[in-house]
């Protein structure tokens, strides 16, 4: 039973993936296109003659594959270009936009046939307007014949039913029906495409007008880059739901830093004890090895039950997220010390305390820094998730609240900020690593 369900799920996933294949193929094509263009441009520029450029074997030589800065820049610019093109961004010229939704006035005609077989044509003027504006309907001439001209306003991305016989001389009850749209024959349940968009004849004989949506995304799905930027500006000035952006961010960062520091303060001594004593190793190995693979997110429910949704609970959670990582890092830092270094220190007359202070601790620092980098990353991910579940303040709380009001621009802004801060933390940790443990990997 389960297997059948899972298989059908897999099939569904593959089906939807299959629809993405043409888009992915196009994307790869664009990457290659830029590559060809860039190769050509580079040849125009000064040819390189450093050592690497003289290598004839480059395929498979890892040292020749350094990240191409041009490709990175184009890649990022291209993402923003795609974003702008599909949201009709005002930051880029209109000809780069993909076709947008139809806005403005358009017309189509319908042909009415009475029971006696006589036909008459009428024009429908459709006024498609953007959300939020309610335009005045223009005055139109009713025209002559049995069918009278209609006018209707439709909000873009929405559809509307037109009761066309409201003003006609014969109505549906009297046997009138539409037999053609824009001169093309049509039946019930069939749609025709017109200058305005899709016009369908419903089963009940009314007209369903769905203006052309184009290929752009509605801002509720994907807001334009500038509106995300504007939100960033207004929210960092006015705050969101009475909490400033700085407050949201500093709450999240505060939790991460306090949780991480507590985790390190307990985890590092624990790791040292495990690395230096077989008794402690034996005692804590089962605990650490069991807790390490438990994702911190799985602990959220228990932490909420035990400590509630306040700061304490979150800090306990982040403490647990950092603790095992730091303990394992410190443990392997201690275990990784070469025995010849320890022997050398002993035969140079060092005491146990001196060996701890001058050999074991400095030798373990690179591993501890690596662990700290991982732990900070995990803590950052965990704090956002924990705030999604329950919090009063915090960047995660901000985006989950925004999503409830469908403030997609705030959600996207929050995600981008979370990404930037996570990246910033990693860069900062790497810089600290470089200045504080320059001997990393040189032993």
């Amino acid at each position: 039973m389960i297997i059948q369900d899972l298989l059908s799920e897999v099939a569904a996933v593959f089906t939807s993936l299959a629809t993405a294949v043409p888009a992915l193929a196009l994307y790869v094509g664009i990457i290659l296109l830029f590559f060809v263009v860039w190769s050509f441009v580079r040849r125009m520029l000064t040819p390189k003659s450093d050592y690497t450029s003289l290598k004839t074997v480059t395929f498979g030589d890892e040292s020749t594959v350094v990240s191409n800065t041009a490709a990175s820049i184009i890649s990022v610019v291209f993402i923003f270009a795609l974003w702008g093109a599909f949201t009709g961004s005002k930051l880029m010229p209109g000809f780069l936009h993909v076709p947008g939704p139809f806005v403005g006035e358009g017309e189509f005609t319908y042909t009415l046939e009475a029971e006696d077989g006589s036909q008459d044509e009428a024009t429908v003027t459709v006024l498609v307007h953007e959300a939020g504006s309610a335009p005045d309907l223009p005055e139109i001439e009713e025209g002559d014949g049995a069918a009278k001209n209609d006018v209707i306003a439709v909000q873009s991305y929405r559809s509307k039913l037109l009761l066309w016989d409201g003003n006609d001389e014969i109505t549906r009850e009297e046997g009138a029906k539409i037999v053609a749209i824009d001169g093309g024959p049509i039946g019930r349940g069939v749609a025709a495409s017109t200058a305005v968009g899709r016009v369908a004849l419903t089963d009940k004989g009314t007209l369903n007008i769905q203006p052309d949506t184009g290929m752009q995304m509605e801002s509720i799905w994907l807001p334009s880059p500038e509106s995300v930027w504007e939100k960033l500006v207004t929210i960092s000035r006015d705050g969101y739901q009475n909490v400033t952006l700085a407050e949201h961010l500093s709450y999240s960062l505060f939790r991460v830093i306090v949780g991480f520091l507590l985790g390190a303060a307990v985890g590092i001594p624990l790791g040292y004890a495990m690395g230096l004593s077989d008794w402690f190793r034996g005692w804590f190995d089962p605990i650490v090895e069991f807790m390490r693979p438990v994702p911190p997110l799985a602990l959220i429910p228990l932490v909420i039950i035990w400590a509630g949704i306040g700061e304490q609970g979150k800090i306990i959670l982040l403490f647990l997220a950092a603790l095992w990582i730091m303990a394992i890092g410190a443990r392997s830092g201690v275990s990784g010390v070469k025995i010849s270094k320890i022997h050398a220190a002993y035969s140079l007359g060092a005491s146990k305390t001196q060996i701890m202070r001058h050999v074991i601790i400095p030798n373990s620092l690179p591993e501890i820094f690596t662990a700290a980098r991982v732990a900070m990353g995990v803590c950052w991910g965990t704090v956002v998730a924990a705030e999604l579940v329950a919090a009063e303040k915090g960047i995660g709380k901000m985006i989950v609240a925004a999503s409830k009001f469908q403030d997609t621009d705030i959600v996207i802004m929050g995600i981008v900020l979370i990404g930037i801060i996570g990246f910033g933390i990693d860069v900062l940790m790497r810089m600290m690593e470089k200045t504080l443990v320059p001997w990393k990997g040189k032993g």
Partner: protein
Amino acid sequence: MSSGLQIDNISMRFDLPNGGSVQALKDVSLDLKAGELMSVLGPSGCGKTTLLNIVAGFLAPTGGKIVLNGHDVQGPDAERGMVFQQGALFEWMSVRDNVRFGPDMKGMAKSESSQIVDHLLDVVGLQDFKEKMVYELSGGMQQRVALARCLANEPDVILMDEPLGALDALTREKMQSLVLKLWKETGKTIILITHSVEEALLLGERLLVMAPRPGRIHKEYRLPFADLGVGQDLREVKKHPEFGERREEILGMIWDMEEEIMGRSEGADA
């Protein structure tokens, strides 16, 4: 009180997890006078590193004892310095701090230890590299630092475990001259383990050939080459007729031992 190093009837036997046991050393006795330089050769598994670790105090023998200057050796101590093959320097310290490590641990004043460091770095030719981190140095330079670090502590005995094993041939030759020079200038007792027969002949005033299973002394030589080599081009020493003779003799001896080991293990397999 007798001076010098006595290795008195040392045996080393330990159990294996599978229930068997290994006799790594059996009844090894040696008497080194202060200031003697002895090189130790032998096929792998003959227990020469085990012997060195026992003398250093890192291992407790199951029989016999080590006596240095009249007292029993109980554990590692600054009186017995070690020079390892590689990777025993503290890469988080500069060259100067590595050399100063021993005096620092004793709590010697910085002014005093700085003099020792300057002098020793002069001797090993690294005065200009004092402030560098050790990982910025080449392998040969790192071994010079290791020698200086060991000497800074004024040990009575220096134990060298293949100190030049990882160096290229040219650097190795230079370092061999340096070891001889340091030996003559400082008058230390040195035990040097090596895999190279030439190095053992060049540096060993006494040369010990050990045999495996159980590890024991196979043959001992007293050689003139170390004295000849002090202040002389070592390539000249190698031209000495006795040098070639001894080299062939010892190589043959070790070859025979290796072949015996191979034969025995093949026999065991069959």
